[in-house]
């Protein structure tokens, strides 16, 4: 579904992504972890071309993402990739319901009534049907992020990308967002998640990619990653996590 081959990216002289070769298969849940500055967010942002790459190839659902294409082709491609941000980025001038309805109507041309029904179903699915008329400022962080997930799902993407979806949340709100993501995974959604939630990685992920200094150092099943990390950097990372 998402295939990186020999992907490289530089910020000036800094090698942000170093020869990435990896694949997220259809229906798979991949958790990307690693120390800060290791390139996790950069990696996930190259998938819908919020970041450009220098060399290599990145395919999403068979389509070469970084090939030259018209802006309308790129918009169509992006509309098929669900993306959830660390800072939610809900549109504050729109109600929760309108946030979810906006893009199906304006990008896909879905009729208002249809978009509305779909949006209500999705808000139901993330447990926020009663909050449909609320504005983002009236919602807690966890509720905002669940609306953001519903908004991304409204475009019916074949895969969802999560860029540290719980890092900006108060601890007591992390659980509700992870629960929604867990249910998505159970429903068979293809997911790529940058997260520090190792409990989620252990329970839900099919694979864990461990990154450091722009490379994927390990790509294994969570069981073996947590029990028996191969790379010394991964060992240190895990022991640092456990020590507090």
């Amino acid at each position, binding site marked *: 579904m998402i295939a990186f081959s020999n992907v490289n990216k530089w910020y000036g002289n800094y090698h942000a992504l170093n020869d990435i070769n990896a694949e997220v298969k259809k229906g798979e849940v991949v958790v990307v972890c690693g120390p800060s500055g290791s390139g996790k967010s950069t990696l996930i942002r190259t998938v*819908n071309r*919020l970041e450009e790459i220098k060399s290599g190839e990145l395919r999403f659902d068979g389509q070469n993402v970084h090939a030259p294409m018209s*802006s*309308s082709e790129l*918009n*169509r491609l*992006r*509309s*098929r*990739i669900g*993306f959830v*941000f660390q*800072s939610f*980025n*809900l*549109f*504050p*001038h729109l109600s929760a319901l309108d946030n979810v309805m*906006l*893009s199906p109507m*304006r*990008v896909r041309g879905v009729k208002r009534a249809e978009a509305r029904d779909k949006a209500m179903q999705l808000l139901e699915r993330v447990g926020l049907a009663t909050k449909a008329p*609320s*504005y983002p*400022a*009236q919602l807690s962080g966890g509720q905002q992020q669940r609306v*953001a997930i519903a*908004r*991304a799902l409204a*475009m019916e993407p074949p895969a969802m990308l999560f860029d540290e979806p719980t890092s900006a949340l108060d601890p007591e709100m992390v659980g509700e967002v992870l629960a929604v993501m867990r249910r998505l995974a159970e429903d068979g959604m293809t997911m790529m998640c940058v997260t520090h939630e190792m409990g989620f990685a252990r329970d839900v992920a099919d694979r864990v990619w461990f990154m450091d200094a722009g490379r994927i150092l390990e790509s294994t099943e969570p069981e073996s990653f947590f029990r028996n990390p191969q790379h010394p950097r991964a060992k240190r990372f895990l022991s640092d996590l456990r020590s507090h």
Partner: protein
Amino acid sequence: MLTDVFDILRDNWLLLLVGQFPNGPLGGIACTLILSVLGIVLAFPLSVALALARLSPWRLLNWPATALVYIARGVPLLMIILWVYFLVPLLIGHNVSGFVTMLCTLVLYEGAYLAEVVRAGIEALPNGQMEAARALGHSHLGAMRLVILPQALFNMLPSMLSQFVSTIKETTLGYVINVPELTFAANQINNQLLTKPFQVFFILAIIYFVVCWSLTRAATALERRIAARRAGLAGAKPGKPAPLAVQPLSAEP
């Protein structure tokens, strides 16, 4: 002194209100307000277009817009009025009224100032808003129209209203090209009376002050109401208005 003021008002209130109308062109406060409203209403779309061009990565859009904004902001308003007054008839081959001249000048001048307000409003929004809209598949212009501008324009409302107040004060310069606005009317009265300039221009100052002050008050009230609605406190006690994302630019001529 006060009796003089009342006498002048009693004898000339119609002139101050509508000028020579209906026996001549519409003037006085009516002219001032119509000029200001038309000026700001027509300047607004121009300012949005200029701001988008200023933010565009394309030099073909960016450079002319930037040049226009810098020139309009770097030249005294009176200078632009005189340029339009003498040049436009040469360009189009026939005379235009002072009102039209003044209106064109105001649209150009206010457009340039408002463009910077709009640009600041757009740039003050977190980058994540544009990113989120683009990630959902909206085009750049679609994201601007549906996500960025509604928020930016809302944040700019107070600045735009203060710009409107500035515009009202700037219409006084129409006096030099014989636009029959309020200052022109007051000067007519002064020329008739000859002996009471202080009283006449006192009235003039008071009228401008009342109009501008009440508009400023209305702007503050509006700002509070919308801020309360946005924060979901509709019906709750009115608090202090939220801090402005955009500080009003000073646009005094």
